[in-house]
């Protein structure tokens, strides 16, 4: 990507104070939180890079939309506005709103997956895989090998390895594969995009066997921007055009609107198939809410409709991804091992390389996230062995090839000065890395353990 400054295409209209703490305070807070950054209280955090999910700053237009919220239980005007936005920018035929992305995953998995099915995808995501498993399916990773190599400069690490996918279909039979799950971008690989060329090939292969493609589209516009920057033949196309082209190659989508769509809550299921739609519409009433609100307030649907239109603007994406690059390049210059190429929604530190003296059983990424917090109050997230959980049958840890700490940037929230503080802190921790000791897990929940697990420092 061509280096250029990313001056924001907006100015600040409303601010929220952040709280400063001392190292002594933080030592107490992180110990109380069991060395799990998820368990810190937000008031004890200085710069919050835990997630880009639901943490965006909304625009004044979105806030104005909040005041236009029509809270009628049935047939709210905001629902129809959202339906129009989804159809205009993403092109899917039917919309089912849900309170957030996992509500959509829950419903879709229940409808499409039968016990004994296999669901191939371009790398797992925690909640997605869990819903597939709860419905009786087994997730199979068919991402390209480069995705697991943090040093590879391959520009489309979100691509599917077509051979792996074809082998799986041949081995299990097409009737055991309800759909291929394609994420844009691939979060667990470091926010890496899939190319349109690859997606078209997946589409062709899926057509051969009559298999559906479900689009996990939470960062589709960011993926579109990276295609515009990296893929041959797309530099003249707009983010909006590329976004639409991606969606058009898929049959259904689950959306956590808390990412790309610039809202604090909300999601949806979108499908082209009439029968799946009917079934989903009946199910959403039981689990989420009536099909014209699905668990969202009217105002939140309105904010989402506006947010979707803002998210596909080229200038917005340039500033968004530009900020991630600014931080990532600062770290690269200092020699910090990060996943390359830099992704769209965050910078991912290779904790295994950063803390090369720790074994994976000592939870290097969990350790590093705690150390960064201790140094500066910056909150990051583990995406390594803790997140990967245990093998369903053997009960052993799943040891992912990538042991990462994720620095996720909320959209439109932090400034360049915040980025400088983050970079300085990580460089400081890197310089003292030899003194860092690992962690023991002392409490482990059954599902999605990374959220609530507790640790102690190894003495």
């Amino acid at each position, binding site marked *: 990507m061509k280096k250029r400054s990313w001056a924001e295409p907006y100015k600040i209209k409303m601010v929220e104070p952040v709280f400063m703490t001392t190292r002594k305070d933080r030592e107490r807070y992180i110990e109380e939180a069991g060395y799990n950054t*998820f368990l810190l209280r937000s008031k004890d955090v200085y710069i919050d890079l835990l997630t880009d999910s639901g943490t965006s700053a909304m625009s004044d237009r979105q806030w104005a939309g909040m005041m236009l919220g029509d809270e009628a239980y049935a047939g709210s005007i905001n629902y129809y506005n959202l339906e129009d936005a989804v159809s205009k920018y993403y092109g899917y035929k039917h919309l089912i709103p849900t309170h957030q992305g996992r509500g959509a995953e829950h419903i879709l998995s229940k409808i499409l997956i039968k016990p004994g099915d296999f669901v191939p995808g371009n790398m797992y995501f925690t909640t997605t895989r869990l819903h597939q498993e709860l419905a009786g399916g087994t997730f199979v990773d068919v991402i390209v090998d480069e995705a697991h190599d943090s040093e590879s400069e391959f520009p489309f690490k979100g691509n599917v390895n077509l051979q792996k996918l074809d082998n799986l279909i041949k081995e299990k039979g097409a009737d055991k594969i309800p759909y291929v799950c394609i994420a844009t971008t691939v979060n667990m690989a470091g926010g890496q995009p899939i190319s349109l060329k690859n997606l078209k090939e997946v589409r062709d292969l899926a057509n051969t066997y009559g298999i559906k493609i479900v689009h996990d589209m939470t960062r589709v516009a960011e993926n579109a921007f990276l295609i515009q920057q990296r893929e041959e033949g797309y530099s003249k196309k707009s983010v909006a055009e590329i976004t639409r082209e991606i969606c058009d190659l898929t049959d259904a989508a689950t959306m956590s609107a808390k990412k790309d769509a610039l809202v604090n809550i909300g999601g949806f299921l979108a499908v082209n198939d009439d029968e799946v739609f009917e079934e989903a519409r009946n199910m959403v009433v*039981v689990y989420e809410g009536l099909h014209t609100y699905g668990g969202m307030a009217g105002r939140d649907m309105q904010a989402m409709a506006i947010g979707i239109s803002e998210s596909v603007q080229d200038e917005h994406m340039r500033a968004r991804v530009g900020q991630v690059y600014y931080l990532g390049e600062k770290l690269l210059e200092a020699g910090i091992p990060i996943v390359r190429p830099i992704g769209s929604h965050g910078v991912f530190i290779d904790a295994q390389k950063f803390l090369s003296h720790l074994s994976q059983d000592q939870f290097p990424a969990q350790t590093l996230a705690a150390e960064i917090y201790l140094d500066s109050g910056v909150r990051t997230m583990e995406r390594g062995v803790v997140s990967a959980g245990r093998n369903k049958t053997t009960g052993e840890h799943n040891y992912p090839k990538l042991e990462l700490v994720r620095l996720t940037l909320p959209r439109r929230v932090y400034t360049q000065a915040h980025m400088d503080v983050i970079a300085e802190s990580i460089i400081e921790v890197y310089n003292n890395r030899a003194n860092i000791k690992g962690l023991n897990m002392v409490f482990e929940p059954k599902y999605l353990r990374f959220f609530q697990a507790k640790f102690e420092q190894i003495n």
Partner: protein
Amino acid sequence: MIHKTTIEPFKIKSVEPISLSTEEQRISYLEKAHYNTFLLNSDEVIIDFLTDSGTSAMSADQWAGVLRGDESYAGSRSWHAMRDAVQFLTGMEFILPTHQGRAAERIIYNFLGGEGKIFISNTHFDTTRANIEYSGAEAIDIPCAEAEDSASDFPFKGDLDISKLEQLITEKKAENIGAVIVTVTNNSGGGQPVSMSNMQQVTQLCKKHNVLTFLDCCRVAENSYFIKHKEPGFENKTYEEIAQQTFNYFDGAVMSAKKDALVNMGGFLALRDKSIADPCSNMLIITEGFATYGGLSGRDMEALAIGIKEVFDPYYLAYRIKSTAYLGNRLSEMGVPVVLPIGGHAVYIDAKKLYNHILVKEYPGQALVCELYLKGGIRTVEIGSVMFGKYDANGDLIPAPHELVRLAIPRRVYTQSHIEYVIETFEEILKTKGQAQGFKIFEESQYLRHFTAKFKKA
């Protein structure tokens, strides 16, 4: 001087225009919606009495809370505000935030339910029943005898029938009972309150047999109002104290905060027992969201924390209950058969009595719902055989015990002149009642069919 007039203890800060329509336009809107008012667009409605759920006007203080909302994914300040407020009210330790009430119900009733289990309640509401039946369990209603008589003015028609409860526990065996659920106020039974003494008896009996008890507390403040004014011994307690005492009896509570917490979105599950809370918390994270937001935005948690306190303001509750009674009593005086006494959040019309010329299998309630919309653009909901009817093996309708139409009044939204307009519409309804026609369903889904069913004229 002591005033007779009950004024709203607030003034209006922000308004939302109503789009007016002609009767001619409404004929075509209703046809397009297949005579199901759930399928109308909201801008085709003049007065929306479909539900009091999520339709409240928030206060300036709540809107300020909306702006203060802390959207941090984990450990948000707004979560702490909500947790503290709910703990203070319920006295329960484990609070699980959910995007709305039915998610809390799904989590707890799936955990306690399943094939072979039964749940007992004064009356299960539609989403509660759906969640229980979806898990494979059975839902049994045991309202007190007075609840069956829409003309009786017994003050606590929401009470459970204690002797039936005892009988069920013996018959079905305590270990097969998922839980006993007391809904305050009893929505499906006419918004009728439950007395403190009844709740005390129910929970004592259950405790003796080791049966879990849950309070569906979505209108607990309104229920507390009735207890204070109608049950001896509570005259000197505050509404909040009465609510706290209510929670005291129960093992857990579910709340759709869209009612008495005065918010547009939100709910929670509250529990005392860690061994139930832990697996429920797992399920919360999988299907709703992380334990410190559960599918709610920070701003919604902030608004909930404020609303759940505001609702106990004595001036607010007096206005709320008295303005609902005003509509109900006026209709009753005109000769409209309403469920007496008037409940807290809604006025219920006995459609079977009003339209005694329409067969139950042709849904007299749905007929009244359609007439009210056509004549006045008033949207209401049927609570009768459309919502709760079932089919027997031959495909014949097993009707619900009542054919009611609910006029649910959103909190702090409509003024007295809106109410006068509704009363005027009922004058016309009474004049033309002989012309009303029944309906048949031609398309429906297995669960919660009333939301999406399509009708044609019988």
